[in-house]
């Protein structure tokens, strides 16, 4: 059985102009010990999906429909108290902005200690030692001293390591990493990804990696879910997805990755058009207005997410998938 199962999730934000469905029918699952990447442009609803799982949606956002099962429990049915038990204990989360995600007025060691003491009844001193140990695990040099640092005394990469230490100190079964490397320098990005990869193996945890960067996906993920306009449009093991994308949107995304071997005089490919306004999504496939292969049917009817013929482990939301034999 999968560790995390998201079924037909719909998350809504009522606004003055109308109800925005930031997530509009997302389905995927994460197995134990697996790294699943959720890929999409900004506004595709991938971060909202993560926050929905964590129960951290900002008012007035709420889950309108669908189910989120974690370890056999329905998360959306849990009380605030029960959800607080899950957060940080069974599911850890790190965010895009390490610079602002740590509280500036507390020492980083104390912030990790807070995470421990929230979930475990142990002494403060013991918790501090655990925090220092965790800092060592995530590769902070001389952690005994750095634990006394305030966040502003650390670089972005170091702070993201602290965030990881804080998220994993209670040994959660699942780590949700929301664009963990986007705000970092390229060299630091690789280090952080490598760290997540290693810790996944060491702790046998699953990782839900939210990213817009297909380079990141290819480096660490086992499987990938492609999102567009709040919907899952394609799901496949990473190697297969990169070799044989079936959804026209995935193809577009892959073509827009800059490659070293490319002739620099050639213009970088970009998908035509823009993401539609969430308030003006029509009946049909949301990608239809940008899709080169769109037919009349695509504009009037929404394709269902269904297994790819002949490749049962992959699924796709498209009437006319590419490269399917």
């Amino acid at each position, binding site marked *: 059985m999968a560790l995390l199962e998201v079924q037909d999730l719909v998350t809504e934000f009522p606004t003055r102009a109308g109800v925005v469905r930031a997530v509009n029918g997302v389905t995927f699952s994460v197995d134990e010990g697996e790294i699943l990447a959720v890929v999409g442009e900004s506004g595709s609803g991938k971060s909202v999906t993560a926050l929905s799982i964590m129960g951290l949606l900002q008012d007035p956002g709420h889950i309108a429909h669908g189910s989120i099962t974690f370890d056999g429990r329905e998360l959306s049915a849990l009380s605030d108290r029960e959800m607080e038990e899950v957060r940080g204990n069974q599911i850890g989360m790190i965010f895009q902005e390490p610079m602002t*995600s740590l509280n500036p*007025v507390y020492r980083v060691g104390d912030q990790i200690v807070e995470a421990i003491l929230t979930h475990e009844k142990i002494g403060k001193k013991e918790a501090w030692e655990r925090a220092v140990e965790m800092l060592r695990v995530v590769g902070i040099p001389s952690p005994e001293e750095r634990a006394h640092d305030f966040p502003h005394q650390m670089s972005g990469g170091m702070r993201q390591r602290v965030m990881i230490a804080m998220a994993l100190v209670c040994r959660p079964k699942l780590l949700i990493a929301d664009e963990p490397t986007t705000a970092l320098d390229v060299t630091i990005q690789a280090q952080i990804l490598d760290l997540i990869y290693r810790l996944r193996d060491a702790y046998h945890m699953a990782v839900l990696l939210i990213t817009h960067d297909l380079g990141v996906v290819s480096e660490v993920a086992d499987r990938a879910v492609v999102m567009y306009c709040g919907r899952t449009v394609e799901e496949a093991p990473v190697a297969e997805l990169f070799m044989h994308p079936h959804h026209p949107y995935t193809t577009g995304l892959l073509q827009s990755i800059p490659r070293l071997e490319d002739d620099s005089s050639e213009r970088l490919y970009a998908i035509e058009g823009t993401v539609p306004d969430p308030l003006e999504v029509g009946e049909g496939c949301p990608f239809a207005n940008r899709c080169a292969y769109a037919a009349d049917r695509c504009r009037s009817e929404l394709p269902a997410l269904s297994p790819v013929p002949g490749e049962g482990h992959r699924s796709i939301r498209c009437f006319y998938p590419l490269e399917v034999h």
Partner: protein
Amino acid sequence: MAKYVLKRLMMAVLVLFGVVTIVFIIMRAFSSDPAASVLGQHATAESMAAWRASYGLDKPLWEQYVSYLAGLLHGDLGYSYYDHTSVAGQIMGRFPATIELAVCAILIAGVFGIALGVAAAVHKRSFWDYFSTVVSLVGVSMPVFWLGILLIILFAGSLHVLPSTGRIDPMLQPVGGTGFYLLDTLLSGDFEAFGNALAHMILPSVTLAMYSLAIICRMTRSSMLDTLDEDYVRTARAKGVRRRRVQTHHALRNAMLPVTTVIGLELGSLLGGAMLTETIFAWPGIGKLAVDAIQQSDYPVVQGVVLLIGVIYVLMNIVVDVVYAYLDPRITYTKEEG
């Protein structure tokens, strides 16, 4: 840090020197001849000249200035034009009353202002949010003396539950001690007197507090709304920290940074506002002293009070910065760290 404080204190001395000068110029150069108003309309030219000479007012202005400065160095603020008592002595006698009032007022303003601001930010668009908006708007729009008058009309005039003037029933007045009646009566175990002093304190301190309460409430609300939106608050929630604890230990803790500044500065300006409050409630503090002195053209007393409040205001600014640095680790005043 010590070095920074020292530097600030030296700067403060310069500012205070300026304040002394400005106040001196206002009082001596702008003002009309006090002799006539002090001695009355029937004084002869000779007696007026003699009077002026006795206060050194016949000397050139710069000489008066130098001797005033020289006096200040010895804690000598000059002498009252009326009874020739020492201004410093008069002020010291009245000062505890004002301090006690101001401290009570800032406590009321701080506690209720912060509580209301937090409640408003945490429960957006609730009753508390609207209530806090009304309080902060009306609080800054209402003249303090009118609020005082309304409270007197209501609680002293109609309900007869609270006294409207003075600090304590004269029969119960503590002898000696610190001059802080609440403290003195409490220390001596005289609870009847303590209750009496407390009852006298309520209306004036609420009156004086209202403006600052409004400012603090508004500041807390907006600052708290900002911090509740911060990434680190989300991080704390993601750790599984309870909602209430996130609000107090993460959002409020950070929101307090700007609020601290406001509270400190408000304490300084409370003393300025004390003039009106003390006048309404016949509160025998330095504010009332100054207002009475103005009506009698007793310039040395006015000058002394203005100077004292200026000094406190400047010192409060330094205290605020030091407290701020203590609360916010990102601020370092030395180059050794970070």
